[in-house]
């Protein structure tokens, strides 16, 4: 037994200056000693008691978390369903409620050659241009129908 080593480790142990490895070394040295002075015997007893406490096990059965998680997810689903019902109710109520007379300026949107236009003047001008074209085409069509009618009546005569 290296008593010098034991004494150094023991002194440092009491001052809490030892590393975990040194503490294990001290425990081994004291445990294997056949006879010890009272000072060291007290420390050995203390170390053995602490070691036996470390052997105590928790016989606690850790509850599996799944039931808890399931209940949480069910609660979540229920809350989501409730939210959907509330949102649907509000939407339905808004749709069924007659619109107030307070009319806001309608937003005019039209597509000109595939481009969306929301400028009222441009839209109006485009509509006028199109209507003008339609009117012109109708006028032309009317003339052609009149011609066909005239030719047909001449042939019958």
């Amino acid at each position, binding site marked *: 037994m290296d008593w010098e080593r034991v004494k150094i480790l023991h002194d440092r142990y009491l001052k809490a200056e030892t590393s975990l490895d040194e503490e294990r070394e001290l425990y081994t040295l004291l445990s294997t000693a056949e006879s010890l002075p009272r000072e060291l*015997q*007290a420390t050995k007893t203390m170390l053995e008691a602490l070691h036996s406490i470390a052997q105590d096990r928790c016989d*606690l059965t850790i509850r599996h978390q799944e039931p808890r998680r399931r209940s949480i997810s069910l609660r979540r689903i229920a809350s989501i369903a409730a939210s959907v019902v509330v949102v649907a109710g509000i939407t339905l109520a808004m749709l069924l409620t007659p619109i107030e007379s307070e009319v806001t300026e309608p937003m005019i949107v039209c597509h000109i050659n595939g481009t969306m236009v929301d400028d009222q003047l441009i839209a109006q001008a485009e509509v006028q241009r199109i209507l003008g074209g339609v009117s012109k085409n109708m006028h032309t069509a009317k003339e052609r129908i009149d011609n066909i009618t005239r030719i047909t009546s001449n042939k019958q005569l």
Partner: protein
Amino acid sequence: MVTETEYISFVTRLKDTVFRLARSILTDSHLAEDVTQDVFARVWLQRESILHSQHPRAYTCRIAHNLAIDKLRHRERERSLTLEPRGAEHSDGDADTSTTDMAALTKRFISALPDKQRIAIHLRDVEGYEIEEIAQILETDEASVRVNISRARKRIKEQLLNALNYGLGES
């Protein structure tokens, strides 16, 4: 993403440590079991941050320490209201209370230590934590931890020497 298997493995590794730490603070196995359950319920809720932290073990022990201290305070409040005498908590389920048994005697000396010393020596000498980790768990500095451990060891050794001198251990 922490899987259920990782969580269960973590709990299995640490449940005894958490239980013993809680019991060292509360000196009551039933309350310590309650605290252990609460600790791991919290770990589950914060599993991403705890299990991926730098020191998941120290983090969990800090939760255990704080919950056990809360429970201890709660019990003290209840006791003060019901006028229950202090010391009743030391009548834990441990069967080895014979004063002739030196190991049992040492356990009693440990349980009679001031809270800070008892927790510090428990974390070091029972659980084998590094001083740095104990400082993290107790949210203090390493010097204070060393002082508490040193005082606890010297105190227990002194009491054991007295017991040996009076022949209590020589059965």
